[in-house]
C-alpha cells in the first residue's frame, strides 16, 4: 500500500484539492520512498508513524 493509499484509508474525506493545497506527498527518487513534505490541513491531524506503519 502506498503512502497516499494509507492516508486515504485514514482520512477518506480528503480530496485531490487537499493534496494540491494543504498536503504534499513527495518522493525524491533517492530510494527512501514517499514521505509527507507538508501537512497543513486545518482540521485533520498529521498521521503518526504508527498510523502509517
Amino acid at each position: 500500500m502506498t503512502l497516499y493509499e494509507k492516508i486515504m484509508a485514514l482520512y477518506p474525506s480528503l480530496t485531490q484539492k487537499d493534496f494540491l493545497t494543504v498536503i504534499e506527498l513527495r518522493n525524491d527518487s533517492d530510494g527512501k520512498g514517499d514521505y509527507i513534505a507538508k501537512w497543513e490541513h486545518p482540521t485533520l491531524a498529521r498521521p503518526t508513524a504508527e498510523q502509517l506503519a
Partner: protein
Amino acid sequence: MASTISAGTTSGTAIAISGDTSGNLAFQTQAGANTITVPNATGTVMVSGNMPAFSYYLSSTQSITTSTTTKILFDTKTFDTNNNFSSNRFTPTVAGYYQINMNVIGSSSSYSSIQIYQIYKNGNPYVRSDWRYQSAIIDTGSGNMSAIIYFNGSTDYVEGYAYIVGTSPTISSSLTTQFSGCLVRAS
C-alpha cells in the same frame, strides 16, 4: 604589469591581447560610439569553455505514485560541458543567470485528471506547468516550461518534479522528457 599586444611572426599565427594582472581586458570605444562588433565581418567569436551548459533525459519509463510529487530521473547525458549535473540535479559552479528548460510527458493506465510538472530551485517550486483534464478518455498529458534562473555558483541547484493523478502513473522517456540549460549572463 601593463597590458600587452603581441602578434605572431608567421602567417596564421594569432594576435594575442593580454590584460593586466587583474585578469580583466577592456575594449574601449571612441567617445560617442559605444558599439563594438566582434568580429567586424564574418566569422565566429569563441566564448570561454567555462560557461556551463547541460542536457539530460530520462532513459526509460519512470513509474511514480499517484498524487505524490516525485523527482524525475534525468539519468542520461546528452552533454554536460562543465560537469555540473549529478544525481538528477544541476548545480552550476559559475554564478549567473541561466536559461533552464524542461519538457515532460506523463501517462496513466486509466485517465489522468491532473498532471503538474515543476522545476524546483533549492528544494522549492520555481516554475510550474499545470495540466488538468476532465475526461474519462485522456490518459496522457505534458508539461513544457522555461525560465531564466539565477544561481550563486556554489549552493543553488535545480531539479525536476512530476505530480500525476491517475492509476499507475508513469513518466515517458527519451525525447519526451528532457532537462537542459545554459548560462546566458554571468553575474
